[in-house]
Structures are given as C-alpha cells and as structure tokens.
C-alpha cells in the first residue's frame, strides 16, 4: 500500500514523516525547501507500506514547480490514502488545501498538527465536529512531542475514505463545468482544472478557455479567482463551525517580531547577523582547515609518495588526493560551519524576516526579498545557491545567476584568508570583500535595466519564530551539505584528475608559456601565476594551493610582493566561476547564461586585475 503526506509548507509534515519512517529528511522552517519528493517505508503489524512526503504546497492547482509535481503525481499514480496534514493555528487557510485534495477523490484522513500551540494561543478546535463535517477521520497531533503520531498509519489503513465535500461554485462555474463535461466527456475535476488553466487535453483546454473568458467578462474575475474564493468561503464556514475562540496568551514571538521587522533596529540586526555569521565562518574555518590539511598531508599524501608509483599514476593519485584534501579542507571547516549557522537562521524563522527587510534593497538590484536566501547560501557554495533560485521568475533567475556566481563562496574565502589575510593584512582582506560587494551591487543595478522579462514581487509567508532544535538544524545543515558533497565534489574530483593529466602531458606548461607574457604585462604577476589561475577555474581554492606549489614555498610573502598577492587574490576571486558552478548554471539556466556569466566574470577579473596593477605601479 502507498500513502502520501500532503500539506502546506511548515505544518510539521516532514517531522511526521521522519517519525513514521525514521529516515533523515529535511524539516524546513522556510517555505518550499523540500523540492524533491521523499519516500520511505513504514512497517506496521508486519506489513510494509510506502510513505511519500510531498513538498509543502499551498494549493494543488498552482503553477509552481512543487505544485505541478504533486498534482501530476496524484493524477498518474495510485495512492491508497492521502494523509492531509493541517496546521491547527491556521486551520481555515489549511482547509483550503484539504478541499482541493478532496476533489481528487482519493481516500484520505486528516491530521491536525501543532494542536498544542493552537490551544495555547486560544484556538479551541472541536475535532469530533470537524470529523463529522468532513466525513473523515481527524487526528489531532503534536509532532514535536510525537503525540498521537502512532495513530496515523492504522487510521490511514482502516479509516481512509473518499470524502464528499463538493463546494458550490455558483451557477456560472457549475454551468461551465457541466458543459465541459458534456462537450469533452471529462470528469468534474478535469473540468475544474481546465477552467483554471491547468490540465491536459487540447480540446478540453480550448473549450475551457472560451468559457473561461466569457465568465471573466461577466464577473470581472477569472474562473480561478471565483473557484478559489468559493473554496476559501467553504473553508471559512467549516472553520467557523469547529473553532471556539477561547482565552489564550499572545504568542511569544509577537514582541520580538516587532523589533525584528522594523527598519530600526531590524536592519542593523540583519546586517550584524550576516556579518557575524561570515566572521565566525572565517575564523572557525581558517582554524580547522589548517589542521585538516596538515593531517591529510602527513597521513595520506606523503605515504602515497612513498609507495613508489609510476610517474603517471603518481600524478593521477596526487591530483585525486589533493582534490579530496581540498574538498575536506573546505567542506567541513567552511561549508559545513556556514550551513549550520544558516540552518539556525532558517529554523528559527529569522530568514523570512531577513527576506522581508531586504525586499527593497533587493529590488534595486533587480530581484526581491525571496532572493536573499539563495544569495546568502552562495557564501557557502554557489552550487546549492543556484539550485535554489527556481522559485524566482525567469528574469530574476537570470540576474541571480550573475550575482550569486559573484558571491565569494567558501573556496574564495580560503583564498582571501590564505593569501590576503595571511600575507597582506586583515584590512586588505576586508577590502577584497568590499570590492566584490560593490561589484555585485553595480552588476545588479546594470542588469535591472537590461534583463528581459517581467519581475514578480515577493509573496512570502512568514515562518513563525521558533526555538531551533539542534537535531533539526544539524539535519538541515547536512542536507545543504549533501548538495555540495554529491554535486560539487564529484565534479571537483574529475576536473582535478583531468587537470593532472593535462599537466602530465605538458599541455599546461605550453599554456603557461602562451599566457605568461600577458600575465606579466597586464596583471604584473609571475608566469606560474597564470597556471594557478587556470587551476582556479577547476576549483577556486586550488588557485591558492597551486600558487604555493609552483612558487616552491608556502611562504608566499617571500616570493611575491604584497601588491602581486593582492592582485592575484582579487583576480581569482572575481575570475570565472568554478567548473561545478558552470555545470549547474548550464543545467538550470542553459548554455547561453552559463557562457555569459563565465565571460562576464572572466572579463571582470581581468579588468580589475589590470586596473589594480596600473594603480600599484603608479603608487
């Protein structure tokens, strides 16, 4: 048998899924983070069931990726029972989804979660009455405490029924449904979907469009609006009957919230939170990275050399191991630390406040508040950040592709820390960040004028402020991390080995000979720096290591002038994104954008390198 959990974002659906299946899944406090459907197994009375966790959605009829995903799954697969999870504190709005789900005529049961919070805030729900109105089993739960969770599977097995909750849509819509059903022989639900502009067959869609526009003319409202309004009214009616408003204390988050969402002190708090997050990653990361790299060198790389492999295999093994080393050196100290901190912000519900505050500033650079989260994720690794821009409009995605790629990710933090902070000074290191931020803003300002397409505004449900739970935060950080480990890392390993081969067959040396005069002239860098920069395309932080290897010493300050080190860092931070980022850009945005972003950043790196070189010469 197959069961599926469906519900709004943030109702605790994933938490219920975890408790039922025991698999680690992301529990999100930011709307729409579980993009993929998760599936797990549950055993009950020696029987195995498949349980699917759909992404959190507000509607079964919308056009967002998640909504389409759930809809098409429900329409093409046999689900034996739907477990509809509702949030007791927002029962009315959650019932809207239940009403839609009921129209799919799949047997279902209803779970009303966070029953305790509702009670605390004075919302008393008569669950028996709700059950009799809906005509199905209703289970009040408190997922955080695991309360009543054990009743869900038995109920889904025995009590799931197709509920008969037909919303009256008014005579026009009803007439339209009837004529569509007659005309094309489709079901009532097909007709409803088609009227709202979603669905399949051409004939049906054309007929629905004609009728739909007639309705729109008459009512000054689209068929979708009328249908949705009727559903909301039905939800309100049901909620009105089962909720008794009692006395309750105000939510704790109320007062803190009024501080967090004001310009003062909200914006300074947001700036401080972001700054200290980055600073913490910078400090913790640099410290841990050194230890990991030293251990790795001593325990793995050196023993590898003592094996006495043939030169070719030695080169290959070295390329592979150095990539693993860098991966570990960056992944855990920088990326994981960063994601833990960001997950804390997400789980506490603070991220949505940040998005709200940043909305206007983000508008200036062509996006809106919801794009703040991908931008921040970019500080960890650009790859997962670019994967999280799907919710934006086409235009915003184009702009975000450019800007996220410019955000100094962990690997670039390593360069800034390892080269500039170590050999030039901490102020200089911050000036690199400053330069990059200014360039990001300028790029955004320019792109706003030229990017094609329309801008959507932000429509974002605020997550309630909650005390983050350690296990959930770690789980979420691990999920962000998995994208880095399974998408970025394999590419790093492959490209590192590929680069090793180029080096072995002397192609890199050839390359260096070709570009060295240019590097010398324009950027004022020694010839080995060009090779190091090329390495940087494959993996940003590799630019730093290669530079050290080629310079023959880790004490870069001894072989290169401070100005050279500074230029090197600026160029490699701006310069072409790493191979993994280009690959993800290609996958998400297509060849054109991937190429444009690469050439733009390449140009930017070169121009600023040359500019700095000219300035330093004059000084």
């Amino acid at each position, binding site marked *: 048998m197959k069961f599926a959990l469906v519900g709004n974002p943030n109702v605790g659906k994933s938490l219920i899924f975890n408790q039922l299946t025991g698999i680690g899944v992301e529990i999100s406090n930011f709307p729409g983070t579980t993009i993929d459907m998760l599936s797990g197994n549950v055993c009950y009375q020696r029987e195995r069931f498949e349980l699917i966790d759909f992404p959190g959605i*507000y*509607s079964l009829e*919308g*056009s*967002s990726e998640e909504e389409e995903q759930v809809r098409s799954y429900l329409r093409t697969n046999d689900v034996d029972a739907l477990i509809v999870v509702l949030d007791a*504190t*927002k*029962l*009315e*709005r959650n019932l*809207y989804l239940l009403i839609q789900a009921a129209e799919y005529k799949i047997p279902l049961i209803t779970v009303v979660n966070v029953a305790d919070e509702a009670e605390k805030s004075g919302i008393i729900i008569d669950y028996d009455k709700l059950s009799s109105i809906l005509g199905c089993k209703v289970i009040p739960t408190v997922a955080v405490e695991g309360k009543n969770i054990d009743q869900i599977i038995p109920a889904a097995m025995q009590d799931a029924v197709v509920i008969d909750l037909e919303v009256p849509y008014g005579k026009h819509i009803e007439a339209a449904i009837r004529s569509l059903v007659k005309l094309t022989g489709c079901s009532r639900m097909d007709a409803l979907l088609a009227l709202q502009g979603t669905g399949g067959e051409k004939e049906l869609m054309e007929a629905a469009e004609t009728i739909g526009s007639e309705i729109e003319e008459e009512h*000054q*409202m689209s068929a*979708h*609006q009328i249908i*949705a*309004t009727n559903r*909301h*009214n039905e939800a309100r009616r049901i909620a009105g009957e089962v909720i008794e408003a009692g006395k309750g204390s105000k939510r704790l988050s109320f007062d803190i919230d*009024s501080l967090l*969402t*004001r*310009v003062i002190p909200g914006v300074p708090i947001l700036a401080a939170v972001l700054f200290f997050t980055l600073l913490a990653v910078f400090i913790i990361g640099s410290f841990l990275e050194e230890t990991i790299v030293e251990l790795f060198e001593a325990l793995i790389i050196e023993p590898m050399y003592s094996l006495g492999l043939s030169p070719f295999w030695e080169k290959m093994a070295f390329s592979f191991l150095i990539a693993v080393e860098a991966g570990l050196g960056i992944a855990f100290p920088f990326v994981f630390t960063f994601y833990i901190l960001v997950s804390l912000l997400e789980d506490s519900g603070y991220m*949505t406040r940040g*998005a*709200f*505050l940043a*909305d*206007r500033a983000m*508008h200036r650079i062509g996006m*809106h*508040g919801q794009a703040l989260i991908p931008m921040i994720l970019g500080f960890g690794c650009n790859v997962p950040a670019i994967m999280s821009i799907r919710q934006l*409009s086409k235009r915003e995605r184009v702009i975000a592709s450019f800007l996220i790629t410019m955000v100094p990710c962990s690997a670039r933090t390593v360069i800034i820390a390892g080269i500039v902070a170590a050999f030039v000074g901490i102020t200089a290191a911050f000036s690199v960040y400053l330069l990059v931020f200014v360039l990001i803003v300028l790029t955004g300002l320019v792109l706003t004028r030229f990017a094609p397409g*329309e*801008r*959507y*505004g*932000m*429509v*974002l*449900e*605020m997550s309630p402020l909650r005390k983050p739970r350690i296990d959930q935060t770690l789980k979420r950080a691990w999920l962000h991390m998995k994208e880095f480990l399974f998408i970025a890392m394999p590419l790093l390993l492959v490209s590192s080995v590929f680069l090793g081969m180029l080096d072995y067959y002397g192609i890199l040396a050839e390359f260096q000979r070709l570009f060295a005069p240019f590097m010398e002239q324009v950027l004022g860098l020694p010839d080995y720096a060009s090779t190091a920069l090329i390495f940087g395309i494959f993996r940003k932080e590799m630019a730093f290591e290669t530079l050290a290897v080629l310079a023959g010493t880790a004490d870069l300050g001894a072989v290169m002038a401070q100005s050279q080190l500074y230029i090197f860092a600026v160029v490699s931070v701006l310069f072409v994104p790493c191979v993994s980022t280009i690959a993800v850009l290609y996958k998400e945005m297509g060849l054109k954008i991937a190429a444009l972003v690469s050439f733009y950043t390449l140009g930017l790196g070169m121009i600023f390198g040359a500019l700095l070189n000219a300035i330093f010469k004059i000084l």
Partner: protein
Amino acid sequence: MDQSEREDYLEAVIMHSAEGKGAGTISFLSGVMERDADQVGEDLRYLENEGDLVIEEDGSVSLTEEGRSTGESVLKKHRILECFFTEMLGMDPDTASKEACEIEHAASEETVNKIGNLLSGSGLRCRGRRYGPGFIEGNFPGRQCRFDVIDDFSEGDRLKVVGMRHGPGGGRRLIDLGIVPGEEIKIVRRLPGRSIILSVKGSEVAISREIAGRVMVEKIPDKDSL
C-alpha cells in the same frame, strides 16, 4: 484640419485652463501638439473661423460654448478609456494614455458611456468617488484615476479585499494564501515606502510593494470611530 486634430486642440485648451494657467497658450499648445508655433497659430485661426474658440489680444485662447462642449466630451471619453485600460486591463499608465488619445476620436459617446457604466457597475471606486459617466473633474493626465490598493494604507489598518488587478506572477499565490475578494486583512507591518506584512487567515504574509499596488481594497472603519 481633420476632426481628430480639432478635438485634440479643444481637449488641450481645456486641460490647460484646468491647470489654471492664463497666458502663453500658443507656446503651451505647440508643446502639447508637438508642432511649431507658427503652425499652431494658423490652426487656431482656423478654429476661430469655425467658431470653436476666440483668440484674445494677448494671444491666449478661450473656448466658445460649442468648442467647450466638444472638448469636454472628448476629455471625458479620454478619462474613461484611460481608466478602463489601467484599472480593468492592467495596462501601464503611459500606454493607456496614448491609446486613449487615439481611440477617443473614433469611439462613439455611447460606447464610451457603456464602458463607464461597466467601471462604476463593477463596484470599483476611484479614490473614494464612484467612477461613472458623469465624472470629469481632476487633473490631467488621469493618474489619480485609480482604485484604492493596499499600498495606499498604513500600518494597523484593517482592509477588505475587493479585487485584484492583472500583473505578472504572484497572483495565484496570493489567492491561495487567502487574499481573495471579500477577505478581511490587516496591515501588520509597513516599512516606510517598502514591503508590507499582512495578516490574513491567521498567518502573516510578506509582500512587495508592487504586489501591494495590485490588490484593490477598501478600508474597514475602526470600531472606535463608529
């Protein structure tokens, strides 16, 4: 001179006098009509012969009874059409104004009045005034001709949603979150000139300003003031 040019002149003169400027009419008109002053002078003399207007000695222009009624009728058509384009069809104000300038000459009074009825009949209001065929006050171009939207209100106001203007994206999500006609919402937080947090159906929803400019609402009076 063809009829539409004549109407444009008369419309422009009314518009000008509504702005309360007395003198310098020829230069003003040549600006509006995008013609040089000589041509405008010639056209005005032609209109004077036709009995639409009188050119005063100081060069300013005043309309005759007939000229005024023709001009006002065109201006009225313009306002109604423009309002229809921006509010019902969601066109941007500049295009709407340009299109209205073209169509006002071709459309009959009856057609435009029907559109006006549609506007007032749909219950949509124009800054507190019902928009109907009799409406002709206000400044030009008719930017004031818009309905109250969330963006017009301040923190703490309780509002009732009356409709939604067309626009890119976001619309469906708003509807799914419960922002539908008839719904009562409250502005929980409004940053100066920026985004807004609404309380709707027990949850809080942050929206951008351009979204707030698309949701048409009317204010629910405070209980105390009743």
